[in-house]
């Protein structure tokens, strides 16, 4: 068991989501930074898709009621175990009664707490993610509250976490070749032109060339961007069609919406572009008020980035397992 000692609103249990039910209107949900969840789970010896806690409002703290392996990944900033300052992106073993505390991260948006054995909430339609819109899944279909107690599964990992912890070079550093840094303080987000791109004048120049700000009306469902409104040259009424996280729709007001993890499954607004899937975790770590720019990408580039991410995740898994085995052998 873990017990939530302190939490802000809208912190939820999430895994890698509930895909496969969009055809009955069920959003996939899942972590806004799925790469952080995968790496956190690998560090604590879980399957990549085990359920973790997504913390997007701080401060947050929880108490372990027994000896537990855990890791905090995703956001920057250093968690505390009782009074001891820890590293992010590092698995540790907590003793019964110890309290893990997360402060507001300096620059990023969402921290993930992975637990050895995973959070043992019921699997609903193949996932432990919380569906906030549907009010099911995760912890009783709702955000975490102070005093909530959540069961922890049994870890099947036989190799113990080293006494001083087991860390990784975080994705933003290890993959800096394929994930370019901020440009003039704006996050570059790669996207491909969408179905109604041609409706926007000058090859969508007003969309691609300006810096957008993530407005305060942004959440797990979508980010509303503020900037100079963009308008298509013709008005159309679209038939409802399936949409995905990353789709950038332009509602009548002209300020784009990027659908995120709790994306609606269907939409009808004109789509000017779609963020490439492997950039969504960076968008998931972008805070309200921060700025971003869309960069025109290609399928080939998206594929290359996907493959680099897959290699990194595989490398983390095989190397961390090998290191744990080697240390156990030498202990």
């Amino acid at each position, binding site marked *: 068991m873990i017990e939530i000692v302190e939490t802000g609103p809208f912190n939820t249990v999430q895994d890698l989501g509930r895909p496969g039910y969009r055809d009955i209107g069920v959003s996939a949900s899942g972590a806004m930074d799925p790469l952080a969840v995968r790496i956190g789970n690998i560090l604590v010896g879980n399957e990549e898709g085990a359920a973790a806690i997504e913390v997007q409002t701080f401060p947050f703290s929880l108490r372990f009621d027994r000896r537990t392996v855990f890791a905090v990944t995703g956001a920057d900033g*250093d968690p505390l175990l009782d009074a*001891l*300052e820890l*590293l992010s992106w*590092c698995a540790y073993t907590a003793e019964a009664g110890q309290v893990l505390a997360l402060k507001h991260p300096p620059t990023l948006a969402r921290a993930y707490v992975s637990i050895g054995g995973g959070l043992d909430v019921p699997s609903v339609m193949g996932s432990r993610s919380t569906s906030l819109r549907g009010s099911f899944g995760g912890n009783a279909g709702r955000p975490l509250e102070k005093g909530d107690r959540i069961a922890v599964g049994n870890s099947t990992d036989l190799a113990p976490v*080293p006494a*001083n*912890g*087991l*860390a*990784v*070079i975080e994705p933003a550093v*290890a993959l800096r070749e394929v994930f370019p840094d901020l440009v003039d303080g704006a996050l570059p987000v790669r996207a491909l032109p969408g179905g109604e791109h041609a409706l926007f004048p000058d090859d969508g120049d007003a969309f691609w060339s300006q810096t957008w700000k993530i407005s305060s009306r942004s959440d797990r469902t979508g980010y509303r961007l503020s900037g100079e409104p963009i308008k298509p040259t013709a008005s159309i009424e679209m038939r409802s069609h399936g949409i995905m996280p990353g789709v950038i729709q332009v509602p009548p007001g002209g300020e784009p919406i990027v659908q995120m993890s709790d994306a609606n499954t269907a939409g009808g607004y004109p789509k000017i572009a779609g963020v490439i899937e492997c950039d969504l975790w960076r968008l998931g770590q972008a805070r309200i008020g921060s700025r971003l720019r869309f960069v025109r990408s290609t399928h080939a580039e998206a594929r290359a980035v996907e493959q680099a991410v897959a290699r*990194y995740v595989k*490398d*983390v898994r*095989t*190397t*961390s397992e*090998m*290191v744990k*085995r*080697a*240390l156990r*052998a*030498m202990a």
Partner: protein
Amino acid sequence: MSGIDFSDPATIAFLTDALTAAGVSGLEISRPGGQLRIVIATGNEARIDVSATSQPAPAAQPLMTVKAPMAGHFCPGSPLRSPAAGRLPRTVSAADILGFLRVGPVLLPLCAGRAGILTKQLAEPDALVGFGDPLFEIEPQS
């Protein structure tokens, strides 16, 4: 001396794995009473020599060392401390992270393990170090 049995095939397999993963071509470990040399040949097959030495165990030193827990690249410094904290000598507490051992994308934190004065760093940044290599010297505070 630790209880590692260098003649245990499993141990050697783990070490070989570690070396291969770290891209290391070989490793030589000298310990009181024994020496282990693993050379990764092309094709990832390891040649292993284990030999007893007649060297006596060195006398207990007043200095304590932080040693490499396995083979990897030495990364001194801690992300938790300001860069100014990198100067030597300096006072450290047991939980302080002095650096990391990097194996591929994995980082093993190197903790001081005891309170004292950190007097020396014994390996160059990014140097490839072997299991048991001394990395830091800590003088116990009296």
